[in-house]
């Protein structure tokens, strides 16, 4: 059985820029398998998430079984195997942020967006995720929205923060 028939592909094709970015990544390592995580990140950056077809396409391009690519994709928490919102909110749930009151920040976000951890708002704007210590412990509680980190976040300040991410 070919790799393509193992995972149902809706004629998925990597774009030229994805393909060349992945090929560039291959030069950094002795073995092409090492580019698998980078390749998943490249696809995710372009599409927001990693569709099924990309798993087989990446496997084919770097020469490893699609099942290995899927194994990697499902292991790492920052690779998304289902569609996510336009913006990702990552709330630090380390013990320092716990002491700093992060649970009330999470509740505030959940109430405003009507979603739980791991869910996406119905308008497709935000996905809410927990994340390991963001290393801003002197400013707990901290969170990230996309690539931006914020500290000393208060439950009543959340609405204003989210406004900047339409």
């Amino acid at each position, binding site marked *: 059985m070919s790799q393509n028939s193992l995972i149902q592909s809706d004629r998925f094709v990597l774009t030229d820029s994805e393909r060349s970015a992945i090929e560039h990544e291959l030069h950094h390592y002795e073995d092409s398998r090492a580019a*698998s995580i980078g390749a998943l990140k490249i696809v995710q950056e372009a599409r927001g998430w990693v569709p099924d077809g990309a798993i087989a396409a990446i496997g084919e391009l770097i020469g490893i079984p699609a099942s290995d690519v899927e194994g990697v994709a499902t*292991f790492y928490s920052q690779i998304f195997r289902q569609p996510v919102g336009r913006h990702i909110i990552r709330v630090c749930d380390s*013990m320092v942020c716990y002491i700093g009151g992060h649970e009330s920040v999470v509740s505030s976000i959940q109430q405003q967006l009507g979603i739980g951890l791991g869910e996406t708002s119905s308008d497709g704007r935000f996905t809410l995720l927990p994340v390991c210590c963001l290393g801003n412990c*002197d400013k707990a509680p901290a969170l990230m929205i996309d690539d931006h980190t914020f500290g000393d976040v208060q439950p009543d300040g959340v609405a204003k923060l989210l406004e900047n991410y339409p």
Partner: protein
Amino acid sequence: MSHGAISSSTQRLSSFGPANSIERSPETHPLTWRLREDGAAVWLAEYQAKDGYSAARKAFSQMSQDEIVQTVKDSGLKGRGGAGFPTGVKWGLMPKDESQNIRYLLCNADEMEPNTWKDRMLMEQLPHLLIEGMLISARALKAYRGYIFLRGEYVDAATNLNRAIEEAKQAGLLGKNILGSGFDFELFVHTGAGRYICGEETALINSLEGRRANPRSKPPFPAAVGVWGKPTCVNNVETLCNVPAIVGSGVDWYKSLARPGSEDMGTKLMGFSGKVKNPGLWELPFGVPARELFEDYAGGMRDGFKLKCWQPGGAGTGFLLPEHLDASMYAAGIAKVGTRMGTGLAMAIDESVNMVGLLRNMEEFFARESCGFCTPCRDGLPWSVKILRSLEQGQGQSGDIETLEQLCNHLGPGKTFCAHAPGAIEPLGSAIKYFRHEFEAGIARPSLTLKSALPADA
């Protein structure tokens, strides 16, 4: 960028508390004396004006590779990632066989330990210090290629490291024939995709190879069989950042840095977080009393908050009581009072925090981040979470605390594949030891339960 003041939630973060603003000198603060007060990155021109890469020049022109290894061995430098293994000994494990000429140096920059943000500061503000440390170390270890394994969320660190690597390449400090020595070294930043377990050195190697980050069996150690089966050395960011000063200023000076009585040499980035007046990060000599760190640097507790207990160095270290602040911050000094120094970034827990809730939060983290490879860790940690949740809700059953203690035993050192589970139960065991009554308070009283379950007129 604003610094010093606590930033409001509408600002991007850039400062590291007061790390930049304490008095610093090259003689006493080898890691941080080059930091700018404004917290901006120190780029190549400024780094070189501040004596940067002079240690590398010395190492390349005046020292043999074995002399560099011996110098680091003699300095007593120990790993700064939390385990504290002697760096020179680790370096000495690399094969003597010259025909094994494909060797790797990996920098562990996967900083995800809760309450640890020291490597982020070094990489964001002093990227060239890490590059110089890796360059000298690579020369000593005969590594032709290095990777900085950086966690994906450290976006600014990635940007700054990549820019600094470009600068170093342009200046002939990375690449071919470095400083005319004939030595080649190329350096890449490899960003991760999440999962705390990647910080375990053999899991890190699997992750770099593009595999699931399950730890590997040791032996063979990475020095013998590492990345792609080749000899590999994995060192933490702060460890590597110590190397230039040791090589540049010598072993005698380095050994004079720590406070008298300390068995660990040099300085350490230490911190205090929680409800203290002045949470932050400072470079301090090993052997400094924890009380000095807590009172003089962190300013003690904020008004209205009382210290209940503290943790000396990250989630994987045990809790200590206020009287233990008399302990000195070095490995054996903290071991004397019953736990490990870990990363040296301490956390204050105030009286308003319930230990059961805190431990529930911590074990949820450890359970989520278990790689799932070995059974005690994969099944034991979620079990502890389940018990802690019910205790937190006042619905614990008699025997729950004993079950938690049993889990602490079954997940202890030597019973799991790597150090993840032993680290996870270290705080749990000590919390039960010091605050057992808080756990007991979570056990539902059978008589009350029975009474409330019965109809009112029964």
